[in-house]
């Protein structure tokens, strides 16, 4: 529970400062709400939230999910590189808080945590975003799934001092 462990969670000072800037927190939250709505529609209509698609992906029986992830990453890489090259500033004028080199270094947590996440992804067939979308789509059983995921996050916080990172 020392500096070494708490060092795993980066400081969020820059982020907090920006939140106070115009156009204001509430207007900002509304945009994130709208972004979430768009994502929820995409997750369902694009079948990313489908347990069937996840099972198909882990059986390598269709290009579908690899196409989704591949094109998403391609667009993400291209736009991120472009923004970095042009030193694009955030809309509110502040600098963009690009993840630092420390975040890019693979450590035990990525391997072990990633594997635990994958075990859950293969069972539930949904990662956190799709869990929210499925709950909204009229499947109350994913309310239980969401509670379980929050409980998992809580247990991680509790166990963190004892886990390798």
């Amino acid at each position, binding site marked *: 529970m020392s500096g070494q462990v708490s060092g795993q969670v980066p400081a*969020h000072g*820059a982020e907090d400062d920006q939140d106070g800037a115009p156009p204001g927190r509430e207007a900002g*939250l509304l945009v994130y*709400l*709208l*972004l*979430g709505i*768009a994502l*929820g529609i*995409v997750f*369902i*209509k694009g*079948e990313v939230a489908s347990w069937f698609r996840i099972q*198909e992906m*882990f059986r390598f*029986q269709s*290009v579908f999910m690899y196409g989704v*992830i*591949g*094109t998403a990453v391609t*667009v993400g*890489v291209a736009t*991120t590189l472009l*923004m970095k090259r042009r030193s694009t500033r955030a*809309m509110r004028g502040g600098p*963009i*808080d*690009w*993840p630092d080199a420390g975040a*890019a270094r693979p450590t035990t947590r*990525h*391997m072990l*945590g*990633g*594997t*635990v*996440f*994958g*075990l*859950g992804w*293969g069972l*539930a067939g949904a*990662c*956190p*975003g799709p*869990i929210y979308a499925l*709950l*909204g*789509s*009229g499947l109350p*059983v994913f309310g239980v*799934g969401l509670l379980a*995921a*929050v409980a*998992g*996050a809580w247990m*991680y*916080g509790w166990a*963190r001092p004892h*886990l390798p990172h």
Partner: protein
Amino acid sequence: MIAWLSQPWPWYVTGPLIGLVVPFVYWFGGRKWGVSSSLQHMCAAVAPGRVELFQYDWWKRGSWHLAMALGVVVGGWIAATFLGGADQVVEISAATREDLAALGIRDFVGMVPGDVFSLERILTPATFTLVVVGGFLVGFGARWADGCTSGHAISGLSNLHRSSLVAVIGFFVGGLFSAHVILPWLL
């Protein structure tokens, strides 16, 4: 327009749309996009206890994640109610359909098999394992790995982070084990 949107969307539409969220959040908020942080903020808001990880101002740091998460719930509702998402038949490959039918899946209408994912069956071993154990591992693993599919597979790989590549390999190691070892034994 509505009729057009109501068809299942092909992957080459869905993928780029998800990819665009990464630059949008960097531009709009100056920060990295991720979804699973919202789980941690809920812990910090509702039951921080004495856990060091949850001792922070959740509203200041997490309200944007939580607003987005709430939006995803609403978006799921819109897709299901107005865009035909609830009874969308997911056109998985014939091979997958055969495999899943062999495991006893009968209901192929909608996003998930209704014969497994139902609240009434939550206490049966199969449904409990898929929903509760699966959900728990997703939450635990996402925070341990410092990100989920959005934070690592999309945002992290977009930054060309090796840490995210390792995490995604982990996602597949775990997922392959669940799909090929646990599910056949469980269902």
